[in-house]
C-alpha cells in the first residue's frame, strides 16, 4: 500500500484537514463525561455492571437519534489487537486509560471526528475532535451527540451538582475543552514559561503534548479548562477563548518580530531542518518532532513552499511506534524504528514534491 493510501485510510479526519487559525491551533477537542443513573461508576463496577453499561450504550447508539448523526461502529477493546489499540491512542481517538480499562469499548464515527469511550473513568466519554480552532463547533457537535443519547438513556444528574462523574474534578458540566497549540517562537524566545504560568492563574491548565513544560516536544501545548462546576459550558469556552486568543496573538507578533530581526537565522534553521528530514537515514522521535516543528514554522512564514501544512500533525502521529509498526508490518527495535521513521518522513515529503497527495 502506498503511504498516501495508508495515511488516508488509517488517519483521522482532523489529521488531514485544515481549520481556522491552523497556523497555530493544530486541533480542538471537546469531551463530555456522562454516567448512567443508578449504576456503579467504573471505579468499582463488576464485569456484569460493565456489560450492562456497554449493552445500554450499544442499544442507544442503534436508535434513530444517534444514527442521524452519522455512521458509527462499536469496537470492544478486548477484541482488538494491541497494535490497533496503540494506533488509536496515537491518533488521540481513545485515551491510554481506556486501553487499560477492563470492559472498555469505543463507539467511533467513520471520520473519527466523533467518538464515545465506554467504561473508561466514566460510563460515557463523548469526544469531538476537529482540525484548527473550532471549539464552538466541537461543543455544538458534542451537545447534539449528548442530546441524542439522552433521548433513551437516563444520565446521573443532580440539580445542584449537575452531571455526576466518577471524579469530582469533572462534575457539573462534565466538559473538558482543549486546544493543541504550536508555539515554536514563544519557546525559542523563552516567553513561554511566563505565559504558561499566567494561564494556570485563570482556571485553565496547560501541558506539553509530548513531554512537559518548556521541553515539550515539537513545541506543542494543550490548553484546557480545569473547572467544570459553577460555570456554564459557554462561560468555560469564552474564558478559554480569551486566553487562547492572547496566546495566538503573542505567537503571531513574536513570529513577525523574529522575521524582521533575524530573518537569515530563521531561514537557515527551517531550511536545515527540511534538509535533514528530506535526506536523513535515521532519526529519533525527539529530533523528528523538533525538525517537523521547524518545517511547519517555515511553511507558515512562507519560507518553505510546496509542502502541505498538515505535515506536522500527520507525521507527529505517523512516526509513533504503533503507526510505524502498522505501516511496515512488523515489530521493530528502537534502532530499526529510527531508520524506518526517517524513511517514512522522506516518503511523505516526496509525496508533496511529486504533487501526489
Amino acid at each position, binding site marked *: 500500500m502506498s503511504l498516501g493510501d495508508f495515511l488516508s485510510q488509517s488517519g483521522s479526519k482532523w489529521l488531514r484537514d485544515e481549520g481556522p487559525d491552523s497556523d497555530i491551533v493544530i486541533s480542538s477537542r471537546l469531551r463530555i463525561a456522562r*454516567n448512567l*443513573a*443508578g*449504576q*456503579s*461508576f467504573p*471505579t*468499582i*463496577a*463488576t*464485569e456484569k*455492571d460493565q456489560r450492562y453499561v456497554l449493552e445500554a450504550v450499544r442499544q442507544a447508539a442503534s436508535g434513530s437519534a444517534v444514527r442521524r448523526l452519522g455512521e458509527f461502529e462499536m469496537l470492544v477493546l478486548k477484541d482488538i489487537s494491541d497494535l490497533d489499540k496503540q494506533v488509536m491512542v496515537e491518533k488521540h481517538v481513545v485515551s491510554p486509560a481506556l486501553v487499560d480499562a*477492563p470492559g472498555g469499548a469505543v463507539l467511533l464515527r467513520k471520520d473519527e471526528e466523533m467518538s464515545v469511550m465506554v467504561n473508561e*473513568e466514566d460510563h460515557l466519554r463523548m469526544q469531538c475532535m476537529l482540525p484548527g480552532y473550532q471549539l464552538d463547533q466541537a461543543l455544538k457537535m458534542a*451537545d447534539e451527540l*449528548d*442530546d441524542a443519547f*439522552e*433521548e433513551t438513556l437516563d*444520565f*446521573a*444528574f*443532580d*440539580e*445542584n*451538582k*449537575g*452531571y*455526576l*462523574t*466518577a*471524579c*469530582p*474534578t469533572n*462534575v*457539573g*458540566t462534565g*466538559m473538558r475543552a482543549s486546544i493543541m497549540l504550536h508555539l515554536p517562537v514563544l519557546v525559542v524566545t523563552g516567553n513561554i514559561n511566563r505565559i504558561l504560568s499566567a494561564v494556570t492563574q485563570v*482556571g485553565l491548565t496547560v501541558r506539553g503534548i509530548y513531554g512537559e513544560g518548556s521541553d515539550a516536544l515539537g513545541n506543542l501545548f494543550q490548553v484546557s479548562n480545569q*473547572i*467544570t*462546576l*459553577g*460555570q*456554564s*459550558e459557554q*462561560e468555560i469556552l469564552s474564558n478559554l477563548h480569551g486566553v487562547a486568543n492572547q496566546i495566538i496573538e503573542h505567537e503571531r507578533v513574536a513570529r513577525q518580530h523574529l522575521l524582521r530581526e533575524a530573518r537569515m537565522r530563521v531561514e537557515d534553521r527551517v531550511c536545515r531542518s527540511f534538509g535533514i528530514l528530506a535526506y536523513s537515514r535515521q532519526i529519533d522521535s525527539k529530533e523528528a518532532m523538533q525538525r517537523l516543528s521547524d518545517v511547519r514554522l517555515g511553511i507558515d512564514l512562507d519560507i518553505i513552499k510546496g509542502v502541505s501544512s498538515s505535515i506536522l500533525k500527520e507525521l507527529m502521529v505517523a512516526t509513533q511506534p504503533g503507526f510505524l509498526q502498522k505501516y511496515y508490518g512488523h515489530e521493530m527495535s528502537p534502532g530499526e524504528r529510527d531508520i524506518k521513521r526517517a524513511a517514512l518522513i522522506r516518503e511523505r515529503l516526496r509525496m508533496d514534491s511529486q504533487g501526489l497527495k
Partner: protein
Amino acid sequence: MLCEHCGKRPATVHLTEIVQGQKSEYHLCETCAREKGEAAYQAIAGAFSVNQLLSGLMNFDPWVQERVETAAPPRCEHCGMTFNQFSQIGRFGCPHCYDAFSPGLDSLLRKIQSSDQHVGKVPKRRGGAIGMKRELQKLRLELQQRIAEERFEEAAHLRDRIRYLEQQTGT
C-alpha cells in the same frame, strides 16, 4: 447476595482484582471488604495524581479531619464506598456517593471547582421536571399570599395548577 467471605452479612462491596492478568471478582460485606479492599484501593490509588491533590485538601479541612478520626465515617448505602476510601482513590463509587458524602464534599468542591452549584446544561427530558419544580416553589409562595389577601378565586386557580404540577413531578 451474602458476603463470600463470612457468609453472614449482605455483600455490599464489589471488588475486581487483577493479578498478573488474572481477574477475580469479590462480593464482600463491609467488614470483610475493609481488610481486602483497603489494600486493593491503595494499589490503584497510586496511579492518580488527583488523589494526592484531594487528600492534601482534605487534611486541611477540619470537618473531614474530624470525620476521618471518628469511628463511623460517612458511607454510601448504595455502593458501600466510605468517605475514607473516596479520599484515598479520589473517585466515587456511584452517583449516590454525592449525597452520602455531602456536606464534606461541598467544601471540597468549593476548593477544586469555582463553586458547588451547577449552572450549565440540564438534560432535555429532565429540563421539564426541573422547570416544573421551580415553578411549583414559586406558585406555593404566591398561593400563601393570595390566601393572606383573601383573594380566594385566584387562590383556587393557583391550587389547581399546583395540583397538576405535583402530579406531573410526582411530589
